[in-house]
């Protein structure tokens, strides 16, 4: 493994000592020549989000693959998914916004109404990743994860729109609902058999789900019977909400919605007579909005704003009020807005070292000090821009 160590030596020569604590260890690792994996300054071995703290800020932790597959069948940004496939590992950076929300989640009192957290920031600053980090924490704590990957997907490009069987004024979206139910099942497999339904749901004249059946059955019903899948989603949400509110509940519910501003924006879906569909008329959106209200206890609601998929909003909008609008703000109020800024110096350093370590930066100039400064300037330390630029090198 001499090859790996020559690379390390290069790192030792060119890297500035921002991580002075790990510096000595790095040198030792090179001298001893017994570690098969380079013990890097930008990585931390702490894979449990509950135990991460300020000293791990700026460092990458690897998600154990046992967690990765079930937890994120959906929900990660597309480019990041490709990166995970390329590098064969899923690494999250520990950053202040996610740590802040995790600390609130730890401190919060779950007999009180659910608290709402909102990640906001410029495009590509890491809001979705922070959300996923927080969701990973909840998952490790054994909560039920209700993760909607992008609410914008539910308000646009709908190929099939059925009038709802439950309420004739509303419209169903069977395809989106079934995909989501499938992913939900993957994430919460182990918990679905334990939680039981509290009410009786009648789907058609012949099919119904009785009280006391495991939730898994409800979900399977929704996946197999595509027509009623949107109603299943609604029923699922209602049930989970009611159950987690009860004092004797043995689980907690985290509702993670990415692109929550879609719920109060406009939609591009058109009815057959070419008039636009009002958001209230979509079953999925209607039920999700009910979940967003903090009239239930025993859980938390973590959301992000997203301009990227949103409709009819200017590109430069990133602050909460601009993207949520009046109605959105009034519905979400009171919430805790958490700002997600671009990388700081230390974080940028970490990301750069990570790419170097993974041999993603092949260009010889990228290893020099000047190259690093150039990268920092070109991407203005914006995580997604850095990712895109490094893709060319």
């Amino acid at each position: 493994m001499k090859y790996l160590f020559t690379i390390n030596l290069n790192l030792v020569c060119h890297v500035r000592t921002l991580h002075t604590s790990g510096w000595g260890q790095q040198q030792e690792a090179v001298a001893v020549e017994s570690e098969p994996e380079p013990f890097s300054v930008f990585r931390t071995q702490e894979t449990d989000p509950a135990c991460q703290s300020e000293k791990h800020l700026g460092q990458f932790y690897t998600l154990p693959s046992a967690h990765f597959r079930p937890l994120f069948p959906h929900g990660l940004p597309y480019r990041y998914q490709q990166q995970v496939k390329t590098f064969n590992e899923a690494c999250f950076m520990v950053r202040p916004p996610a740590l802040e929300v995790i600390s609130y989640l730890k401190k919060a009192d779950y007999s009180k109404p659910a608290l709402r957290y909102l990640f906001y920031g410029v495009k590509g600053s890491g809001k979705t990743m922070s959300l996923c980090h927080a969701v990973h924490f909840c998952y490790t704590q054994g909560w039920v994860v209700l993760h909607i990957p992008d609410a914008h997907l539910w308000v646009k490009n709908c190929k099939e729109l059925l009038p709802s069987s439950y309420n004739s004024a509303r419209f169903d979206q069977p395809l989106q609902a079934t995909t989501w139910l499938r992913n939900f099942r993957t994430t919460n497999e182990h918990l679905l058999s334990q939680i039981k339904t509290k009410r009786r749901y009648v789907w058609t004249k012949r099919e119904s789900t009785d009280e006391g059946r495991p939730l898994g059955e409800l979900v399977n019903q929704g996946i197999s019977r595509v027509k009623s899948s949107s109603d299943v989603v609604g029923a699922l949400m209602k049930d989970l909400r009611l159950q987690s509110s009860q004092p004797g509940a043995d689980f907690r519910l985290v509702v993670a919605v990415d692109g929550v501003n879609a719920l109060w924006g406009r939609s591009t879906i058109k009815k057959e007579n070419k008039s636009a569909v009002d958001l209230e008329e979509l079953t999925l959106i209607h039920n999700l909005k009910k979940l967003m209200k903090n009239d239930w206890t025993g859980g938390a609601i973590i959301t992000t704003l997203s301009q990227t998929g949103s409709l009819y909003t200017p590109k430069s909008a990133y602050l909460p009020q601009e993207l949520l609008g009046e109605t959105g703000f009034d519905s979400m109020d009171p919430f805790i807005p958490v700002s997600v800024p671009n990388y700081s110096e230390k974080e940028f350093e970490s990301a750069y070292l990570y790419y170097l370590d993974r041999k993603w930066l092949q260009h010889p100039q990228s290893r020099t000090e000047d190259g690093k400064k150039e990268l920092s300037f070109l991407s203005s330390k914006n995580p997604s821009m850095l990712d895109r630029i490094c893709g060319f090198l």
Partner: protein
Amino acid sequence: MESTAKKRRCSFNKDWETTYHWVKPVQGDSQRVFCEVCQSSFSVSHGAPERSGREFGSRKPRREEGEPRTEKMPLDQDWTAVYPAATPFRAGSVPLPVRMGYPMKGGVPPEKKGNLELIKIPNFLHLTPAAIKKHCEALKPFCTEWPSALDTDAKCDEHFPIKVECTDYVSSGLSVRNPSARIVQLKVKLSILNLDDHARKKMLKLVGERYCKDTDVLTITTDSCPLRQQNYDYAQYLLTVLYHESWKTEAWEAEKTVADMEEYSWEGSPSQKNIMDMLLRMKVAGEGEGEEVQEQLLARSEVQEYKDSVTRLKNEGDNESSVLQYKEAVKKVFNL
């Protein structure tokens, strides 16, 4: 444009000197000849100078160009005499080494001599400070003295709160009249007028664009009547009517909706309802329903802070600091 047969350009031929006495060669350029009659050189690349036969003694010799005026200008000259009125740029009269134009490859912008770019653009060489001073001195006999007591802006505002501006135009032409002279502009600060809260809001809604928030000045510009005096009367009338109307309250004003409100008021807003709901459910104040619980909750400092932050967020729009303030207030309410 090359023709198919290769042609060579003509150059100076010694025989021409004998044939045409006025022809002389030009040093350094074999494709030009110098005509002694008209004292200029022209190109002969396209053939012998037969064309110039007609110039043979028929035109007056062109006299030499003199020195440009700039060489003879003393440093302390009276510039207003050089450019007394608006005239196009004259390279020979402006003693500045001005260059203008696109620099060709390896070159610099062309000089001012014969530069059409400089002639095309408007110049203000006739409006130097010295010229302005002269104009002012010339206009002084027609003006009255500024009152010495009004030496600061504040005093002017105090004694003369309404300012009326009209413009007179002087030009030479077929008629001395100018239709733009009828425009009258009336400026007044709204703080001078005695308006209560409702009257002020109504006034602002009535005038719309004519009010400037930064300087608190209402500007009424009238030009609908043909004469200045009529416009002035109309402007005064408008001001009076605006003032009286804004004090009146009509019956339909009761239908004012939340969307019409100029400022966000927290009382009765969904935000207040939300936070009250939440606090009641969190049972912060202890058991008991009704007004006193509400009052108690409202009196808490966290709720007041929350109210301030929401009002600021809604009125100012969002920026980083107002969002941070809101965050701190919400955290305090939830004891995080």
